[in-house]
């Protein structure tokens, strides 16, 4: 028993936990992740800092004039869009998940299509169709012999109600996607247990499936509301006075950065609330998946006229959210081919591709780095920091634009001052108003998309893979390169495409951060369509919609195979 004496316990004084923490923090991955997080948080921090700094009393002026209107309008918009997407999203998800009716297989993916259409594009299309001079009203006037606007009533599209309808039509897929995924992930055992205990299929759905899916539905709605707060194109075009529009108004028309930052800070409060709701729901969702037994859900065969009613209900959002706008745009593009598909449009498309491509590459590279750093560190602190840094997706583009512009402006001034003092040359504005600024804005906003997707995918690789590779003599970087990257390739590609397409559709930040006279497809469409020249913009708008279909394909691919072991993991958004 040679070993016994050495194994006899030796009393040692425990080292303090803080000392350990400090030492274990020092490595390239952690330092890199902290620096990147700091840079990404900077724009938001800048907005909050300026917003909370007392400044020439613009706030009291705003509060007494426009603020109540902004709050009321924004809340109405949120409630309207929230309810609309809830009904359409959960309703259609329930129909395609639980019932059999004609066209069900097609609707499973077709219901996602409206996601491809940016809200501002659909707004331009419907305005063109439904306004006084548009084809519908013209037809009505001709048919009934009305001559003036006063002779009949027709809903005004350029209104709060119009904005709610437009956003509902293109945002409901978030709710559809998440509630459908939740229905599909539910263990069939739970539903069968409910049936065995004597409940009808319909009652089982309401008493079991729906409550279980509630966290997912809440997440979907909060994503919808974040997008609603982000929207600039629609509310600008319809002149609906939301916070976002207010920020642009105060900034660009009143030339008041501090006021814009203060409005942005107030808007952030809304967002923080949504983020908390979403986090809470995600937290709850974890406890809802108890068993690993997934089989096809029992489907309820609809009878008689109910079958066609179901088809019509599912067709409605697809037709109005995708087929009509895409069809109208295609028609316009054919009709105005000469003027719409000009050399400028192709140049702008090139600009869009370059910006979005840069954003996608940076977002995926940095997102992968951060996700892997969190995996290596396993520290709660780093995880929390990175998660905080990836909150950009919740922050409206208008707020980020203010933050990016102000923080880059300060950086430019700093460098300029330093160079003038020490070398005697003026560098001017190095970053502001360049594509660096736009790319940085995209990165801040869409990093979460890349990070979340990569992190979820990494999470499916058992930690013993890391241990095996390390024990076989490979350092963390080599392990990432030779083990993790080959295994998560699919998800990394999916993340890149998602970021690419979202950057391409992005309007509120691009409008402000782009270089002078620099157009992307989105800004071009915005500029021409809001001048009621939809024909000119139709080709570009159609291009955006076509790019937008890419993530729809990825998402529908991911959701139908969202079973254990499938390599592509997509986090929405």
């Amino acid at each position, binding site marked *: 028993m040679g*070993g016994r004496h050495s194994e006899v316990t030796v009393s040692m004084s425990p080292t303090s936990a803080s000392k*350990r923490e400090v030492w274990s923090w020092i490595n390239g991955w952690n330092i890199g992740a902290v620096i990147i997080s700091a840079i990404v948080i900077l724009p938001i921090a800048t907005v909050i800092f300026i917003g909370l700094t007392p400044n020439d009393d613009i706030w009291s002026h705003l509060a007494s004039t426009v603020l109540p209107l902004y709050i009321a309008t924004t809340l109405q918009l949120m409630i309207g869009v929230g309810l609309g997407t809830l009904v359409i999203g959960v309703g259609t998800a329930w129909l395609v998940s639980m019932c059999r009716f004609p066209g069900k297989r097609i609707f499973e993916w077709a219901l996602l299509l409206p996601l491809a259409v940016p809200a501002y594009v659909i707004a331009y299309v419907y305005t063109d169709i439904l306004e006084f001079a548009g084809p519908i009203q013209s037809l009505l006037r001709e048919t009934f012999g009305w001559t003036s606007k006063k002779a009949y009533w027709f809903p005004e599209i350029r209104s709060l109600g119009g904005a709610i309808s437009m956003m509902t039509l293109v945002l409901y897929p978030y709710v559809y996607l998440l509630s459908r995924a939740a229905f599909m992930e539910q263990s069939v055992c739970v539903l069968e247990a409910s049936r065995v205990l004597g409940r009808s299929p319909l009652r089982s759905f309401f008493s079991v499936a729906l409550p279980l899916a509630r966290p997912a539905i809440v997440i979907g709605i909060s994503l919808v509301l974040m997008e609603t707060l982000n929207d600039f194109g629609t509310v600008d075009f319809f002149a609906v006075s939301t916070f976002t529009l207010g920020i642009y108004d105060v900034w660009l028309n009143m030339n008041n950065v501090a006021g814009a930052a203060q409005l942005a800070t107030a808007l952030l409060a809304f967002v923080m609330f949504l983020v908390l709701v979403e986090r809470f729901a995600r937290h709850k969702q974890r406890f809802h998946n108890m068993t690993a037994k997934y089989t096809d859900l029992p489907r309820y065969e609809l009878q008689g006229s109910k079958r066609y009613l179901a088809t019509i209900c599912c067709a409605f959002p697809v037709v109005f959210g995708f087929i009509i706008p895409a069809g109208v745009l295609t028609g316009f593009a054919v009709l105005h081919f000469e003027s719409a598909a000009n050399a400028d449009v192709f140049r702008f498309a090139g600009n869009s591709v370059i910006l979005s491509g840069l954003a996608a590459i940076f977002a995926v590279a940095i997102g992968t780095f951060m996700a892997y750093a969190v995996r290596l560190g396993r520290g709660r602190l780093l995880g929390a920091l990175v998660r905080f840094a990836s909150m950009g997706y919740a922050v409206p583009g208008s707020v980020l634009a203010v933050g990016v512009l102000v923080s880059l402006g300060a950086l430019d001034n700093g460098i300029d001052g330093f160079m003038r003092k020490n070398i005697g040359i003026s560098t001017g504005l190095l970053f502001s108003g360049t594509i660096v600024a736009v790319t940085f804005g995209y990165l801040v906003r869409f990093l979460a998309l890349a990070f979340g997707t990569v992190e979820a995918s990494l999470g499916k690789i058992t930690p013993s893979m890391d*241990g*095996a*590779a390390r024990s*076989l003599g490979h350092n963390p970087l080599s392990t990432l390169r030779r083990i993790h990257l080959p295994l998560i390739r699919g998800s990394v590609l999916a993340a890149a495409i998602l970021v690419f397409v979202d950057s391409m559709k992005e309007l509120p930040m691009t409008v402000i951060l782009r270089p002078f006279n620099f157009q992307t497809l989105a800004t071009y469409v915005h500029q021409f369509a809001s001048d009621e020249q939809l024909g000119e913009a139709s080709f570009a708008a159609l291009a955006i919609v076509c790019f937008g279909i890419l993530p729809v394909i990825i998402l529908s691919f991911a959701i139908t195979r969202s079973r254990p072991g499938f390599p592509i993991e997509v986090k929405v958004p």
Partner: protein
Amino acid sequence: MKGLHLYGVSHFHGDKQILDNASLLVPAGELSCLLGPSGCGKTTLLRLAAGLERLQTGKILIDDVVIADEILHEPTELRGIGLMFQDYALFPHLNILDNVTFGIRGVSSPEVRRRAMEMLDQVSMTDHALKHPHMLSGGQQQRVALARALAPFPKLLLLDEPFSGLDASMREQIREETLNVLKQSGVATVMVTHDPEEAMFMADRIKILGSNGRMLQSGRPHDIYFHPQHRLVAKMFGLMNRFETVIDDGCVDIPLGRIHAPGFEEGQKVEVLVRPEGITLDSNGGDGVPVEVQSTHLLGHDNIVRLRLTNDIENSIINNELYVRVHHAFEPELSRLITAGVDPKYTFIFALENKCTETMDSPISSNRSEQHSTELMRGEINP
């Protein structure tokens, strides 16, 4: 000293203490088994040794060189430790050959290949070299994982429950093959398991851990089985017959007879543990205590017999049932009266109250183990 040495290791996961001042010494060239119930911290010890977790308190040395303490943390990839996981962790995107070559570095590529094929040959897997892991059975995956871990010539090999993922039918065969490969390679090995039989079969030396990584006993399989130094060690191998009594004139009285118990204080309260195979039965009315057969269960080689003492003696017995393991040839009829005796070789006596520390068998007897005894009392006969 050559080998692995951990000492004074305390470890927390969050607020939960996993290891409390645990120490472990594994000499080179031996196969040591860490045996203990789940949650005793044995896997954590392994992960700390491999560097998969950062050491919080204590020291880890390999061949007398400190590789980890409160400040120093030599990364896993520089420790030269081979590691085999419970789930094997074969890289799914690489074929078997590439899996095995993954860890061989610093030699020319033909040499890498030659070495890998040699390893695959040792585990009889050369035919599968170009397959991918998902095409192999569990047993084949286990062999590949072993070949992969041994390929870089590790100073030390750590095995985490290497057979738990296998079917019972395959386990014995794979266990034997693995033992042969390990003996051939001569590498110092630490294996973690919760299966005492597996540990007895594989180990040169068994180290039994109690809660929080406390070393209860370290020794050769024979010592562990016949000379347990702690009640938990004695109970490791399954159900025991348990009696409480007091030392009377250097002996203890249990219903099966009087057993010599040197080294205890007079009047000391003790528990007496008798292995099921330590009770001898005689159906021909020989010497012993009369008992009644309650049930018999044929296990294969052995027969499990449940008995009831007919003359329930006033003292000490908690449950007047006896649990006996005999050769299958002995198959008494139900409800028949037979006689039972006890073999002192299979009988272990531990002090119950902590008055006396110089007990015969348990130098590590402490307050903490006393807390367990109450929980364990009821579980003795119930599987």
